[in-house]
Structures are given as C-alpha cells and as structure tokens.
C-alpha cells in the first residue's frame, strides 16, 4: 500500500487545474542500533558542547550564527528565519514540459505518488497525454515551508512527482580534478566488447537486501552467547596500468 496522504493540492498548467493527493512511495526498513557507553552500557545521547567552556549547553542557550569570517558570526533568530519561509500555496506549478530521459539521474531526488482527488477527468487525461507524448512537466511547489523543484511524470497508470535537486547543489565533475589518460583503441574495443557481453536486463527483484537478514542472524547468535568469527575485509589487488589490456583480454575470454 502507498504511504499516507502527506499533502493535497492542484497541478496547475495553462488554464487547467488537476486536484491531487501526495503519498510517499518508498519505505526503508533497517535495523536500528544505539550508541552505548562501553563501561556501563548506558545509552548515549548527543549533546551540544561549548568549545570554550567545555560544558554541555542547554537548548535555550543555543543560537544560530552565520560565519562571515573566521570566528565572526551574524546571529539569526528563529522569527527572522521564519519570515524567509515561502508563502504557503496549494499549487504544483508546471512551468514547462520536456521529453523524458533529459534529466540526468544525479538531479533526481525522491518520488511521491499522486492520487486523484475529487474527480478523475483531468487526472486520467493528463496521464494519457504525458504517456503518449513521452514527456514530463518541470514544476515547483511549496510543502512544509520549503520550496521544491520537481518533475511531474507518469508510469502509465498514475501520476508521480519526482523532486529534483537544484542545479547549484550538484558538484561539478571539473572540481574532482580528474586526469585525462590516453587509451589505445584496442583497450577501448575489448573493454566495450566485455561490457556488452556482461549486459543484462535491469531486474531489481533479483537483488535482495540480504545484509539485513545476515545482521539479524549475527544479533541472534550474539544473543545466544555464540562466538562470532571475525573475518577481515579483503582488498582486491589493483590492476596495474601496463596489465590492463591483458586483464581485459582474459576477462573477455572468460565470459565469451
């Protein structure tokens, strides 16, 4: 079942409004650990410590500062910050439509399901139009005092809203300072052949989160007082640059 309704509003474009309800689409379950004090197994909590007094500071003595230069801050109070919150609105404002596949996955944040609200007419027609034209809508909206950028899309059955990261949040590849290293056509050819050989269909159901189960097993063993064999992580030996072609050839032979 989809998650509960978290927001209600209207998709707005041209002179059209489509009423929708927003639902979460993802549910992650993971094992929760706590941090304990090893001496007495007391559960620890995080505490803000004053760097000057070296003492814990209660909430009411904490303020927010923006560092303008080393060690110098502008203090901002919660009321002032509250005033920067975007005006609340019920509109998912579609600014333009683009062909699907134009958005690099690096921009994609989380997906919400949109459920039709009140009536189906506009909703159904929009699903059909997006599907047939193979497009998605770039939109903005305000939810929980934050402004969002997103893509309005369909999977053929329902409408979805995929939140997008803002362009200035994406770190550029340039800043990684990668070197250009020449490769021979032969290396590239064998490398490409190898990848094509190893290509299959994306079948996400094949991949289970086995780790969670293994963690449960580990916890169970420890609870029963069994001894745990500690295995050291192995590091693979890197392929030396002058052995690359050889490794590629051997790989291709193995899969062919």
């Amino acid at each position, binding site marked *: 079942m989809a998650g509960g309704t978290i927001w209600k509003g209207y998709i707005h474009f041209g002179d059209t409004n489509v009423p929708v309800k927003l639902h979460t689409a993802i549910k992650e379950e993971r094992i929760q650990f706590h941090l304990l004090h090893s001496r007495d197994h007391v559960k620890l909590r995080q505490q803000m410590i004053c760097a000057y007094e070296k003492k814990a500071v209660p909430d009411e003595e*904490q303020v*927010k500062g923006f560092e303008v230069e080393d*060690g110098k801050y502008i203090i901002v109070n919660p009321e002032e910050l509250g005033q920067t919150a975007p005006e609340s609105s019920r509109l998912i404002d579609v600014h333009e439509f683009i062909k699907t596949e134009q958005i690099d996955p690096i921009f994609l944040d989380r997906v919400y399901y949109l459920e039709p609200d009140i009536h189906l007419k506009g909703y*159904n027609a929009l699903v059909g139009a997006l599907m047939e034209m193979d497009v998605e809508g770039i939109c903005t909206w305000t939810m929980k005092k934050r402004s969002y950028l997103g893509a309005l899309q369909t999977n053929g059955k329902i409408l979805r809203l995929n939140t997008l990261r803002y362009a200035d949040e994406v770190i550029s590849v340039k800043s990684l300072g990668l070197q250009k290293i020449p490769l021979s056509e032969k290396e590239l050819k064998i490398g490409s052949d190898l990848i094509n050989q190893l290509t299959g269909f994306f079948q996400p159901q094949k991949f289970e989160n086995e780790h969670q189960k293994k963690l449960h097993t580990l916890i169970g063993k420890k609870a029963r007082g069994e001894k745990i064999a500690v295995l050291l992580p192995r590091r*693979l030996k890197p392929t030396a640059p002058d052995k690359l072609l050889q490794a590629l050839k051997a790989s291709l032979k193995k899969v062919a």
Partner: protein
Amino acid sequence: MGNSRSDIDTGEVLFKQGNKMAVQGIWSGTISFSLVAIPVQLVKAVEPGRVSFRMLHSKDYSPLARRMFCPEEDAIVHPDEIIRGYEIRPGKYILITNEELESVSPQRSRTIEIVEFINMNEVDSIYYDHPYYLVPTKGGEKAYRLLVEVMRRTNKAGLAKFVLGEREYLVAVKSMGGALALMTLHYSEEILPDEDISPRGGEIEAEEKSRIKKIIKKMMADFSPEKYADERRKKIMDLLKKKAKEKVPVEAPQVEEEEGEGPADLIAALKESMRKVKMKR
C-alpha cells in the same frame, strides 16, 4: 568536518561551502568488473544547498560541538568508550563491534563488484536514491578512465552491491561527464505499491486529452535546471546581507584546537557510520 552544523536535526536550509568538501572521501576501496580492479574513493556528488549555520552558545558566542554524552555520568564520552548496541528488550542491548559488523559481508565492505551491466534507461527513476562520485586513487587512473570511456560509448551502467557502515547498498555506476557517478538504488521491496491509489474506472476522455496535449505542445522546452533557484535560500541570503550591514558580527572567544588524538575525528567517524548515508536530507 564541522560537527555542529545545524542541518542535522533541524532540517534547516543551509548554504554550500564550496567544493572543498567535494574531495573528502566517504569510503575507499576497489571497484571491479570481471578481472579488472580499480582502487577508488567515494566522494559526494551533491551538496544540499543549505545556508550553513553554526550553533553558538548565546552566553559567549563560542561554537558548539556535537558530542556523545552519558546521561548517567553526566559527562562527555571518549570515542574509545562508545559501542554499538542492538536493543532486544527495553534497556537490554546486544553489543556489536565494528569488526563483527564488517564480518557480515567482508568481501563487500571493501569492493564494489560490478556483477552485470544494464541499459540505464531501463531503470525507473523511482529507484534512484542518492548520487556520489567515484574518483581513482593512486595507480587506478588508467583503468578508471577506461571504465568511464567504455560505459560512455556503450551507454551502459554497472550494477553492484556494497556495504558501507550498517547497510548494504544496491548501486548503479555510470559514466558522467568524464567521471564515474555512483547512484545508490532502492531495493524493489522498499518501493510501495501504487495500486491502491490508482484511479479506478473513468475512461480517458479523448477531448480532454487532446486539449491537454495542445497546452503541453505550447509549453515544450529543454531541461535547464539552472533556471530554477531555491527561493527560500535566496531570502535567507538577503536576510543575512541586510543584517551584516546593520550589525557588527559577534566574535567567538579564542580556544585552542582540540588535541589531535582524535575525539573529534573518531566521533565524526562513528556518527558517520550511524548516519552514514542516510547521507542526505
């Protein structure tokens, strides 16, 4: 790393600190496909566009640091004395060491082994979770370059699983602008079904659909994310500029740096592994 950034628990919107953080490794190990092994580091690919506030003490304007604290002893706990516990019943914990945790999947905690390649356009966008970059470490530059280039040419992405902290991630590694981008993916069991909210009945009305198509046609464009900015962030920056003109900034007292024996770093490491890659929002 500053450890009192207020975005951790308040959800406050913060500002990015330039690209200095970008090269900080989150993890180091090897990425492999078939018989080729490439030493790499995992680094951030996105920096939440949040204006970075620092929490200060209102009495002396000294910055605050987040530390683990024992409520029983009313004292800060040294990182060497912190251990992970799983609660089996209220107040009763099973202790798990880092070594035991790594033993769960020893082969996957240092290696991202690409088990197969896929066409990236087969991946429904609902699977994408969080992006990172991989950068080569010493000796891996050439093989890295090769993997970038052949995945670009073939337009394929590699699928792998690897373990970081307490979680095992399903990831897709793809070529992006000359680098390897690593996207963590959701497991299919984490994706909620949408049948219960799908529209029931109600045919698509042809007239309404063609009306909508006409509007869409007029609104077609190319994706250019630079056009859109976070309005809230702009307002916060304006507020800060205004305040900077009106008021002299407060000054924090001088403190000697914390000794390098590591409480800060280890704590950060522990916190990282707890939070690790929750790594977002």
